[in-house]
């Protein structure tokens, strides 16, 4: 089923006055897509998910599921599968009864026969790979098992739309990864449209076709993993999607000049002159030996990358360089040469020909080699 959210706003009046939880949120999820809503806590992800399910009313705007306006429709009339963060299993019912709940409450005329329900339950138990736990009570299950039961329960009435609220939150990292892959395969196998809420950006990029980044009740950016990486709309998106470093500076006659010392300038084609912020991932930087440069300290490493603490004077930044380079730079003073960066001005990405400026991998372009007129302009 497709989902269309148009200008959705939700505000509540609390003890501290009016509070806006969602502000003009618009979202289009075509049939069969897997979308992840990410953002820090309080960004409005869960509020949006609950609004789609009909659990929380919207102040204005509308929600369409399969082209049908959902205004005034109770959650039970929407046929969406919903998995809560705390699973919300019925503790007094066995796993099998939990799964069949959606069928058991159907009016007699629509309700499948007892044997059909039993068959359906055993199929779903098979699907969640817990074939022997039908008669167990939820409290006996582990977190991962409970989560799968909650999923099976949500799927029993064959919803076209599956809404998952932080489904991996309470699981340990190993189980998390397994469940993530499994949910993705389930999504494809059953031809579902899935909307997932998570605060873990890696999880989102990993599992979803499309990631919607939210902040303060608004959608900041909506795109696939590549778009978000190459063209993050705001510094927040860039920061939220992974470790990043931020360098303030000036664009002047086609060059970016960092305010801090020890950062090599780099060329930026067709960008307007003025103040700008260059943001990079910690590995998008190379080291240039420089007698007057900053000192380095190795603080750790993983996957063949060494983590280096670079002293920039007023602050220190952590960068990643291949371990292979280490002996060469150990103990030397260096400058940082940015190899690619995204430039922001006034909190938004600067749109040039190419937003990711593949800077001079700089076979050592030195400040001294930069045309004099660039420096004098600063």
């Amino acid at each position, binding site marked *: 089923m497709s989902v269309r959210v148009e200008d959705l706003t939700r505000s509540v009046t609390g003890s501290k006055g009016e509070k806006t939880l969602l502000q003009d949120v618009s979202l289009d999820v075509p049939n069969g897509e897997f979308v992840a809503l990410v953002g820090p806590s309080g960004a409005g992800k869960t509020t949006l998910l609950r609004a789609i*399910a009909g*659990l929380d009313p919207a102040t204005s705007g509308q929600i369409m599921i399969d082209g049908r306006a959902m205004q005034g429709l*109770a*959650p*039970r009339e*929407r046929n*969406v*599968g*919903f998995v*809560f963060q*705390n699973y*919300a299993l*019925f*503790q*007094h*019912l*066995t796993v099998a009864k939990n799964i069949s*709940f*959606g069928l*058991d*409450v*159907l009016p007699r005329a629509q309700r499948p026969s007892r044997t059909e329900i039993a068959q359906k339950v055993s199929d779903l138990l098979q699907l969640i790979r817990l074939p022997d736990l039908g008669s167990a*009570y*939820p*409290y006996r299950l582990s977190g991962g098992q409970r989560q799968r039961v909650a999923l099976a*329960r*949500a799927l*029993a*009435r064959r919803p076209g739309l599956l809404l998952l609220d932080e489904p991996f939150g309470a699981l340990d990292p190993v189980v998390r990864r397994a469940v993530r892959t499994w949910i993705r395969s389930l999504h494809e196998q059953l031809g579902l449209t899935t909307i997932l809420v998570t605060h873990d950006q890696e999880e989102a990029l990993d599992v979803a076709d499309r990631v919607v980044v939210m902040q303060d009740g608004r959608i900041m950016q909506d795109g696939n993993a590549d778009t978000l990486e190459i063209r993050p709309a705001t510094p927040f998106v860039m920061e939220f999607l992974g470790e990043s470093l931020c360098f303030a500076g000036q664009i002047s006659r086609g060059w970016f000049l960092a305010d801090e010392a020890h950062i090599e300038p780099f060329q930026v084609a067709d960008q307007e002159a003025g103040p700008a912020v260059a943001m990079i991932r910690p590995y998008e930087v190379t080291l240039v030996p420089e007698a007057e440069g900053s000192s380095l300290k190795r603080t750790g490493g993983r996957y063949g990358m060494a983590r280096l603490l670079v002293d920039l004077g007023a602050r220190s930044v952590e960068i990643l360089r291949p371990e292979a380079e280490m002996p060469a730079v150990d103990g030397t003073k260096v400058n940082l040469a940015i190899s690619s960066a995204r430039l922001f001005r006034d909190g938004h990405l600067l749109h040039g020909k190419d937003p990711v400026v593949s800077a001079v991998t700089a076979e050592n372009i030195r400040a001294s080699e930069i045309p004099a007129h660039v420096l004098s302009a600063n």
Partner: protein
Amino acid sequence: MLKPVHALRVAWPRPGDPLPGFRFALITTVFWIGLIVALPLTALIIRPWQEGTGAMVAAMQDSRMFAALRISFTTAFLAALLDVPLGIILAWSLVRAHLPGRRVVDALIDLPFAIPTAVTGITLATLYGPQGWLGAPLKYLGISVAYTATGIVVALMFVGLPFIVRSVEPVLREFPPELEEAAGLLGARPWQILTRVALPTLMPAIVSGFGLAFARGIGEYGSVIFIAGNQPFRSEIAPLLIVVRLQEFDYAGATSIAFVLLVASSVCLAGVAWLRRRVARGLIAGADS
């Protein structure tokens, strides 16, 4: 393998237990419980037989006693049962409905715990008496409450209600709203959410509250005797009959009633405990094992 010495040590609190002087506290507590609970109970069990088995057998054949016991148990049961829906609704409105004056109602609910039962009895007798505010209109409708078994039920409902409310309220407060939402999303209508999700989850607390109200009802004396009329075979409760027998210096009769009351109450409460375990299946770890 554990050596026996170790096995013994396991039964004692481990060193550094947060309760200071645990061993001393435990011994003192057990001694006190023995003195104030176990000893009187033992005496109650032994005393009836001291007048001779014959006297006991004779006392046991007293039909007035059985009538009183029957009235005590049926009225206590009925009152506790009628309190259940009222208690649930009260607890629900305390927790869910943010009514004005909620705090006042909250405080009033405990009133039956606090006021002397005799005061309750006189108040109810005045209210439901033939000339009372409620008694007069009810009499006009042909219903007499005062001086009948109905009056006993009314009095017992009054004293039993807080037990249900106070048992259900905390559980309802902890009840995750997601459970109701999940049921709704799965297609349950409001009444199905109530009967299939909310009530079963509250059931152990309801049964506990029922058990407490029922137990209190069996033993209740002060609030009942003023409104009951106390006619033998019709509205005479067992605790009152004990007093009557004592005033007649019939100690065998009094203690035999007490003995039967003790046994019957124990059986009833064991039944309540069993029922609670049954409905707690899945809700309280270990209840289904």
